[in-house]
């Protein structure tokens, strides 16, 4: 199970997440920045829940009302051309 990939985009395994979380006593956000889990192409849409669960089970803390992983735009994969002002106002 340790070798199972959790974040598919950034290829982060369960073992890596557990190790980092224990070593640094990380919050969800810190774990994301340390491992890049949830920071790939899909923006965390696939692994967000799994990463949260790894954390709640390591820290033994119930999920809080605040979103564990911050959401930042763009929330969908975008090309730089589309982001760079090519979009027109309707």
């Amino acid at each position, binding site marked *: 199970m340790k070798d199972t990939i959790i974040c598919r985009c950034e290829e982060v395994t369960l073992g890596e997440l557990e190790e980092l979380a224990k070593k640094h006593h990380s919050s969800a956000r810190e774990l994301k920045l340390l491992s890049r889990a949830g920071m790939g192409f899909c923006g965390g849409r696939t692994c967000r829940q799994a990463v949260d*669960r790894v954390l709640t089970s390591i820290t033994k803390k119930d999920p809080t009302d605040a979103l564990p992983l911050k959401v930042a735009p763009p929330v969908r994969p975008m090309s730089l051309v589309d982001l760079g002002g090519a979009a027109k106002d309707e």
Partner: protein
Amino acid sequence: MQVYDAVIIGAGPAGLAAAIQCRENNLNVVVLDEYPKAGGRLLGQLYQEPDGTWWNGIEESKALETKAEQLDTDIRLGVSVHHIETLDNQFVVHTKKENFTTKNVIIATGAAESPVPVPGWTLPGVMSIGAAQVMTNVHRVKVGEKGIIVGINVLSAAIAQELHLAGIELHSMVLPAKHIISGEQANPRKVIDDLSRVAHLAPSKFIQFGSKFAKYKWAQNLALQFYPKNGIKMWEMPIHLRKAIKQINGTEKVESVTLVDVTADGEIVEHSEEEVQVDFVCIAGGLYPLAELAAVVGCPFQYSEELGGHVPIHNERMETPIPGIYVAGNITGIESAKVAREQGIVAGLSIAKKESDSPDIIEEKLQTAIENVKATRKAATIQFHPNIPEGRANVSAAFSKIIDEQKTETTKEKIS
């Protein structure tokens, strides 16, 4: 530059129902959806109601779309929204090609799946149960020759029936193995308890299955203790509450899975490995509200297990604490498409009232629509969690608390 009365994000049952209400009140709206077809997850749904009639999502979706079109609704498909920017009393909805300036936004983005990771799950041939549903019912593509479903819940049972109807062979339904992420989904006691509680509301065949376990704990314990080795059959497919998937095997693609026996508490029984040849695996880990855009625009959230995860705080009128931002459908909690549709009506009327010169007339309709949401929830065939009304009440309370705090702040400012 034109300013819309409302931009509706999501053309599923909630978004389309909201758009119809807006157009009936002559509002200038645009509906955006990134999928090439309107209907959202309605498109995949096909199940038998307890009264024997069939719920066909494609037909339901067509009916909504046709009505919206008759009202000259501007529906744009294949358009991904990636950001909502806040200006003074206005919002700019950013898409890949155009930006839409609007007074109000309804976020009706639905839900996403949370598949439980299984060793080997990145092999081609492994998919979420929702992907199998879309491929089968929408694209009419056969997902494989023989498969297995991991995860036993109302959603996976409903989709298993759809796959069976499409003539796809399924080896069985099993649990995920117990680990840090699968949690309660791997616990036979929890699964049997959930199944027995939703059984009276589930599609007809599933009732027969769920009600086998009755509501009594002692009966459930007995059922788990003496659970048949060959599983209990539904649609010619065994359901195994005492077997779990340990691993998915293959080099280039799925070739087989390794199953293990588990105890009534989900602990793996040693040396019980068994290899089963399959060419596809569906993982059913449940749904969570897809609320990225609500987060980006600054909505406060509440965690609710009953509603499927973090939901943007809102009231019965589908208003969020941010004036001009509304939510409807599964983003507010995982429920059936019928509830989503009624919530869409409420959101549409809320905006119509806000923009109207005679709000009192609309208020009356709005009250009826709010009651309809509750009635629909009560009668829902597929209920994803037994305590949905409790979760709803907590979110409404959180909304009132925020509004009260805002009022106190304003009063303090006035005094000082």
